[in-house]
C-alpha cells in the first residue's frame, strides 16, 4: 500500500494516502489504548505520579488521533454550494487545535514539575517504586516505537498525520525520561530527577510543535506552497506563444497535498478567437503537469479593461518593470 502510494503521483494519489493514513491512525489508537491501561495499572502498583501523569498525557494523544480520524472522515464529504472547497480545511484546523493542546500540555507538565520542586524545597519527596516504573515505561517504549514506525510512513503525505506523529515522538521522550528516572530512583534514591526530567520533556514538546504550528499558519494565511516557485511558474506561462502578461496570480494550499492556482492571463489582442480554448488548455497543462497544482482557474483576457477590482494584484512583473523605469 505504501509503495503504491509513493509511486503514484498523479490523479488519485491523495485518496490513496488518505486511506493508508486512516488505517495507520486506527492501529496507533489501539496501541496507545493498550499502553494507557498498562500505565494506569502500573501507577497504582508503584505509586508513581509520573506514570499516572503520562497516562493522562496519552489520553490527550488518543483524543488527538480521534480528532484526526474524524477530520479525515469529514474531509471526504462532498462539497456543497456553501462549502465549495468541501471540508478539506478541517484537517488543517484540527492540526492547529492539536498544536494548541500540546502547548497546554507542556505548560501543565511544567507546572506539575514546579510543584514537586517546591515540595522538595520544603523537605517532602515523592517516593516511587522505581523498578516497576521503569518496567512499565519500557513496555511503553516498545509500543511507542511501533506506533511511530506505523505513522512515519504516512506522515509525509498529510499534515494531520504528522501532527499525531509529533505527539507520539513527544510521548516517547516522556517514556524514555520515565525509564531513566525510574532507574535513578531505584538505584540512587534521588527522587528529584523526576520533576527535572519533566521540565525537559515540556521543553521538547514545545520545540517539536512549533514547526507544525508554523506550517499550519502558512496554510491559513493562504501563502504560496513552499514547493511552488511563482516566478518560474509565471515565466513558464508567459513563454507560451500569444501570452503577453500574467498578473493577479495566486497560489495557495487548500489542504496538505492539494493546492489551488488562479491567474489572469493577458493574451495578444489579435490572437485568433478560435484557438483560445486550445491556448487555455495548454496553459492549464503547464500548471498541472510541470508544477503539480491540480485546481486551476485561468482568466484569459485580451485587454485589462474592467480588471481594476482586484485590489492586490501581485504582478510579478511590476517589481522588475518599476526597477527598470
Amino acid at each position, binding site marked *: 500500500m505504501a509503495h503504491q502510494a509513493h509511486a503514484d503521483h498523479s490523479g488519485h494519489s491523495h485518496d490513496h494516502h488518505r486511506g493508508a493514513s486512516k488505517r495507520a491512525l486506527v492501529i496507533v489508537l489501539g496501541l496507545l489504548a493498550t499502553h494507557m491501561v498498562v500505565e494506569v495499572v502500573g501507577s497504582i502498583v508503584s505509586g508513581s505520579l509520573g506514570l499516572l501523569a503520562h497516562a493522562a498525557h496519552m489520553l490527550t494523544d488518543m483524543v488527538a488521533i480521534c480528532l484526526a480520524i474524524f477530520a479525515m472522515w469529514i474531509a471526504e464529504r462532498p462539497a456543497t*454550494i456553501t462549502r465549495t*472547497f468541501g471540508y478539506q480545511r478541517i484537517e488543517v484546523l484540527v492540526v492547529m487545535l492539536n498544536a494548541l493542546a500540546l502547548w497546554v500540555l507542556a505548560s501543565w507538565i511544567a507546572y506539575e514539575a514546579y510543584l514537586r520542586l517546591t515540595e522538595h524545597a520544603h523537605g517532602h519527596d515523592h517516593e516511587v517504586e522505581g523498578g516497576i516504573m521503569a518496567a512499565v515505561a519500557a513496555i511503553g517504549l516498545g509500543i511507542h516505537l511501533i506506533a511511530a514506525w506505523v505513522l512515519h510512513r504516512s506522515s509525509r503525505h498529510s499534515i494531520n498525520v504528522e501532527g499525531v506523529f509529533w505527539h507520539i515522538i513527544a510521548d516517547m521522550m516522556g517514556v524514555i525520561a520515565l525509564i531513566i528516572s525510574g532507574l535513578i530512583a531505584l538505584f540512587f534514591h534521588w527522587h528529584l530527577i523526576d520533576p527535572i526530567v519533566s521540565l525537559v520533556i515540556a521543553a521538547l514538546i514545545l520545540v517539536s510543535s512549533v514547526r507544525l504550528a508554523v506550517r499550519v499558519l502558512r496554510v491559513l494565511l493562504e501563502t504560496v506552497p513552499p514547493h511552488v516557485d511563482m516566478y518560474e511558474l509565471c515565466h513558464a506561462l508567459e513563454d507560451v506563444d500569444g501570452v503577453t502578461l500574467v498578473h493577479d*496570480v495566486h497560489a495557495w494550499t487548500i489542504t496538505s497535498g492539494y493546492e489551488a492556482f488562479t491567474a489572469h492571463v493577458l493574451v495578444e489582442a489579435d490572437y485568433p478567437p478560435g484557438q483560445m480554448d486550445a491556448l487555455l488548455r495548454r496553459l492549464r497543462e503547464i500548471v498541472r503537469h510541470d508544477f503539480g497544482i491540480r485546481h486551476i*482557474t485561468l482568466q484569459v483576457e485580451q485587454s*485589462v479593461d474592467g480588471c*481594476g477590482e*482586484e485590489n492586490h494584484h*501581485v504582478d510579478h512583473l511590476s517589481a522588475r518593470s518599476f526597477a527598470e523605469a
Partner: protein
Amino acid sequence: MDRGNDGSHHDVGHGGHDDHHRSSDAHHHRETGRGRLLIALGLIASYMVVEVVAGIISGSLALLADAAHMLTDAGAIGLALFAIWVANRPASIKRTFGYYRTEVLAALCNAVSLWILAGWIFFEAYHRFREVPEVAGGVVLAAGGVGLGVNLVAAWILHRSAGHSLNVEGAFRHVVADLMGSVGVIVAGTLTLAFGWWIADPILSILIGVLILVSSWRLVVNVFQVLLEGAPARIDMHSLCMALEDVEGVTLVHDIHAWTITSGYESLTAHVLVDPDYPGELETLRRRLQQIAYHDFGIAHITMQMEQSLEGCTERHHFDHLLA
C-alpha cells in the same frame, strides 16, 4: 515585455485602492475600526494607570488585581490593532493574498483566549462553592463600578465596527466579557455585604462564564467559516450561479468557489462554459459576468475561466450547482 501595455498595466496594479468602492469599502472599515480600537485602548489604558497609581497610594492589592484584569482587555485590543497593522502590508510573490488573514487569526486568538478565560472562571467558581470566598470590600466595589463605566464606553465605541470586522468583534467580545465580569463583581459584592449571601459569587461566576461562551460562539463559527473557506454567508451562491447562467451565451457555470479573504473582502473563481456557437466576443461576455459578480453580489476579487469545451478540465471536486 510588451511596452505598449505599460499604461494599462500600471492601472491594474494601482487603480484598485482608490477607484473602486468595493475594495475601498473594506479599506474604509479597516481604518474606522483602527480608530475606534485606538480610542478604546486609550480609555482602558488610562483607567488602568489610574488604578495602578491609586492602588500604590492606598496600598490596595484589590485595585492592582483589577488593573491586571484590565490588562487582558488592553491585550485583546492591542492584538486586534497589531493585526490591522500587519494586514496593511503589501502582498508579495510568496504571500499573494497579502496579510489580510492575520485579522482573522487575531479574531481566532481572541476567541480561544475567551474560552480559556471561561474555563478558568468555571474552575474558580468550583473552588468557591467549597470554601467561603473573601468578601469584596468597598474599594473593590468602587473600582468595579468605575471599570464598568469604562468598559461600557469602550464597548459602545467598538460596537459599530464589530459588525464589519471579525477582528474588531474579537476585541469587542473581550470588552463585553469584562463588562459582564464587572457587573458580576458589583452584584455579588453587594449581595454578600448586605445579606451575607456568599453563594451569589460562584453562581454569578458560572452564569458569566456561560454568557461568555454563548456570546463568543457566533464569533468562533464565523472565524471557522472563513478559515474553512466556506462561501460568505451574505452571498447566495444559487442565485449567483443563476444570474451568471442567465447571460446569453453561457451554457454552464461550474467549479465555482467563493470565499472570504478577510471581513469585507471576498474572492470568486468560476469556470464558465460558453456556447461554442456564441457569436459575440468572449472578452465582452466575461466582462459582463464580472460586472454581475462585482456589482450585484459585491465580490471584489474575481477570476473567471471562460471555456468552450470541458476537455482538459481536471479539477477533482467540480462543484456543479446543477447537480443539486
